[in-house]
């Protein structure tokens, strides 16, 4: 019978894929508990929670992590605001240069990062701008905008324009209409754009490496450390971030699931 044969093939396949995906993550987590002091954290020496109790031991880790978080926040925030406005303009208005804008927005996504990073550096040098914190932010805004536009635009398309007219009809001026109707309607897209931008910025290495000057972001620190031996505190922080995002994701799923259940319950 067909059913019994596929009965175990599919779950087995699923588990193989999951193991393939998560094995590296589990290695990272496991080695945050590895009992070593220095050198390469690759051979299991025994279990300890020492590193978890002392996550601030290596100052560079904390500092680069802080830098990365600030850059991720700034670039995602700016890109989300600009991307939302661009998406609104692209969907709502027919203006000269609209299709050109569409092409240019796609370019940062299609261009290899090496090319993007090196040409940005060339630009900064030409303009005599010293690379550092702000050039990283600018570079990250640049690629984040494209993703923000695409994400928000998906939400605006399929949005009934009459909703905004209805708000105007009900004594809302342009600003109130945006705040009370447009923004709440596209908010899921805007938040998604921010989170995507945050994640893209946080783990970007190639473009950052070209434009960072003397500033060290978290991926750059890890890259540099990998040649001397990565301190187990890196695993601690990575694990913490992984757990945090996983929890956030499940909370979000639960909330959405409950909301869907509530609106289905008529």
């Amino acid at each position, binding site marked *: 019978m067909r059913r019994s044969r596929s009965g175990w093939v599919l779950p087995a396949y699923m588990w193989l894929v999951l193991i393939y995906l998560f094995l590296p993550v589990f290695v990272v987590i496991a080695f945050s508990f590895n009992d070593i002091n220095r050198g390469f954290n690759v051979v299991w020496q025994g279990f300890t929670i020492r590193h978890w109790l002392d996550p601030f031991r290596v100052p560079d880790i904390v500092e680069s992590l802080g830098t990365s978080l600030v850059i991720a926040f700034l670039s995602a925030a700016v890109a989300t605001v600009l991307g939302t406005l661009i998406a609104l303009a692209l969907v709502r208005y027919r203006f000269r240069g609209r299709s050109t804008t569409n092409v240019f927005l796609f370019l940062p996504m299609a261009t290899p990062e090496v090319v993007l990073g090196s040409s940005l550096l060339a630009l900064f040098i030409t303009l005599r701008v010293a690379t550092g914190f702000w050039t990283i932010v600018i570079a990250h805004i640049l690629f984040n905008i494209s993703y923000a536009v695409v994400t928000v635009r998906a939400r605006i398309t399929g949005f*009934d324009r009459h909703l905004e007219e*209805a708000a*105007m*009809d*009900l*004594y809302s001026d342009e600003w109130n209409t945006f705040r009370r*109707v447009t923004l709440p*309607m596209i908010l899921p897209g805007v938040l998604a754009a921010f989170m995507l931008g945050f994640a893209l910025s946080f783990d970007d290495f190639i473009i950052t490496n070209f434009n960072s000057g003397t500033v060290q972001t978290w991926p750059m620190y890890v890259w540099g450390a990998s040649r001397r031996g990565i301190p187990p505190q890196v695993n601690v922080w990575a694990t913490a971030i992984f757990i945090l995002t996983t929890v956030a994701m499940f909370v979000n799923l639960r909330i959405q699931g409950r909301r869907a259940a509530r*609106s289905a319950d008529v």
Partner: protein
Amino acid sequence: MDTRTDIPAVELDGVTKEFADFTAVYELNLAIGENTFFALLGPSGCGKTTTLRMIGGFEDPTTGVIRLHGEDVTGQKPYQRPVNTVFQSYALFPHLTIFENVAFGLRRRGVEDAEVKRRVNEMLELVQLTPFIKRKPKQLSGGQQQRVALARALVNHPRVLLLDEPLGALDLKLRKEMQIELKRIQQEVGITFIHVTHDQEEAMTMADVIAVMHQGRIERMGEPTEIYEDPRTAFVAGFLGASNMMSVTVVDRGSGAVALNGGTRLHIDPSKLDGGDGTVRVGVRPEKLRIYPIDEVSLPPNVLQGTVTDASFIGVSTHYLVEADHIGEIAVVAQNLDDHHHRPGDPVKVGWLPQHCFVVA
């Protein structure tokens, strides 16, 4: 009902709307009285929505002036005008509850909380939606959403309410109910309704005054019976219902005597003949015609002879098609009063009164 007060609720003065390559509304002049249920009737694409959107402030006229109660509002934003709109798609805010949807306009105008609550509840009662105030629009049926849209507009006490095919998305039974409901609400709140529709029955059921629109122009405007009985143009005659049209030659303008192609004399109301000379087109509605056996002797002034080609009995009436000499097929709707049922092939006479004829341009 006299709808002409000194200052009309809505006045359009030479309003034209041109889109890039298309003139949607052409030189429109229109005055709508206070407390009128006004229907803007016409086929799809004739410019009804565009006209309504210009009154609401969603489109600016290319030329012309729009006045609300005498005040020039041309160029004003929608939120500056004392009108509210019921959109065809309802356009309810999906992220807000029914209560907040209805409260939206009041809150934007800074009405205080207790007053908002009172007015919203009162309005939801009027449209019989009190049990649903905590729901979201998606959780209501089409008819209920329609009433929310109505309540959301009416709660602001607009001086004019604009409705763009508000019943178009409802099924037939609900539509009939809502027609009566809308009319009741209009009479209760006593404000001007401008109701856009392409359904002539809907317009005639509800409206005090109907304007029939065709290709960006208003062809005929008046009370429903008036424009039905005397449509004045072939388009209006056809749009408001079936009619039998004939070309006749004027014989004697004073008595209203005209002649068909074959010489048959007919009589029409001479007052309707003014201006028309030589050949004119006249029409008569099928329900105005009576069908008689061929040997009938007591006949009205206008009589044609013919042969029944089709007879369909539909209960309240029987619809006949009669092939008449020199005219072709004419439609007759006969009330089922007696047992004179004519069959296809029967020779018959068809007659009507002179005042039931109308003349079209």
